[in-house]
């Protein structure tokens, strides 16, 4: 087979371009961050997680610091949410985790409010202070129930 250096060069460029595309997809678009064993893994048990899904963002003051890694059921039938956070993060042990919604119809995400204690959360720890997701239907139900009770009271 004849040797053709130009063709070899073109093939090399093609392979490099393909690998660059894969690298771009992996690093920039896929975002290999907060993953792997080095991430800070913190769990939190909620009574109600609403529509929270794995990979939902975790934010502090609106800044994304990690993602929901997995959601499972704890022994006491509460929802155990494992968060995979930026390992450089220093969170006090009295940090509060709450599930909030972006907008009325937006996606659920986890918001952390760091506390004031000196002790820090380490990987594998559990956040004690949690605030469950607000379910709109239940709130409306309570509202209707309360006004109903109030109305009866007025009649008396």
């Amino acid at each position: 087979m004849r040797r053709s250096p130009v063709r070899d060069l073109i093939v090399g460029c093609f392979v490099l371009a393909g690998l660059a595309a894969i690298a771009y997809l992996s690093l920039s678009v896929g975002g290999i961050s907060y993953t792997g064993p080095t991430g800070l893994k913190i769990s939190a048990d909620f009574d109600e997680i609403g529509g929270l899904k794995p990979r939902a963002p975790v934010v502090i003051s609106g800044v994304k610091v990690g993602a929901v890694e997995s959601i499972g059921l704890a022994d006491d039938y509460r929802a155990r949410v494992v968060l995979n956070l930026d390992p450089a993060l220093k969170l006090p042990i009295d940090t509060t985790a709450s599930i909030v919604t972006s907008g009325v119809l937006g996606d659920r995400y986890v918001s952390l409010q760091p506390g004031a204690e000196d002790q820090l959360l380490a990987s594998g720890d559990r956040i004690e202070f949690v605030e469950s997701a607000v379910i709109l239907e239940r709130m409306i139900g309570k509202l209707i129930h309360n006004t109903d009770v109030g109305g009866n009271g007025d009649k008396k």
Partner: protein
Amino acid sequence: MVTAVRDLGFLWLQFVSELGRIARFGGRVLASVVTPPPRLRQFIDEIYHLGVLSLVIIVLCGTAVGAVLGLQGYNTLARFGAADSLGAVVGLSLIRELAPVLTALLATGRAGSATTAEIGTMVVTEQLDGLRMMSVDPVHYVVTPKALAMTAVMPLLSALFTVCGIFGGYLIGVRVMGLDAGRYMSSLQDAVDFHDDVLGSLLKALVFGGLVGLIATYRGFTTAPTSAGVSAATTSTVVVSSVSILVVDYFITALWGV
């Protein structure tokens, strides 16, 4: 009635034996991958033929598909006031489904058919018999570099397709429709996960590459030694590969959820 049942049974038997022949052929190709001497130069030449020469069509189609996704996605999402998540729609549909499948279909038409025609012509002109007479294994000498190159090239082409598609969506969404560039990219980055989406996409492309490489070379290798045989084999490569890609895509998605 009886003949109909008999014909049906015969067709089924034929189908199963054809599958068996393809599997045996695949085994021969796999075995000859590790058989020395490695045909590296031939392999690089095939990457040029199957990959570099398919590049233009991949780049054009990728950009066009991304642009169409951007346009349709924007119009639909804007109705719900969710135009900001256009990046997620374009990126996820490209990475998870469209890029691997469309790349494989395009590569089948562009490179798979050419491979079949090339090997088929070698059958017609008795070049493969010539190789056998020199006690050179035609599978090792001709087929393996082509099948291997097709498998290696597909993930690269698919990744390039994806990047072009993301660019096409950006072009329409940001440049034409006036979305914020940062919003487009950040919704894309938030939605796409490396492990679930990007790796799954590359795995799909790799499987499709192996599939197209195997079918194209098998059809060429078993061409009836006439000019009509070559044309029939080429057509059959495109048909069988396209159908298998779509069917296998369903099963990969169902089994691994990518």
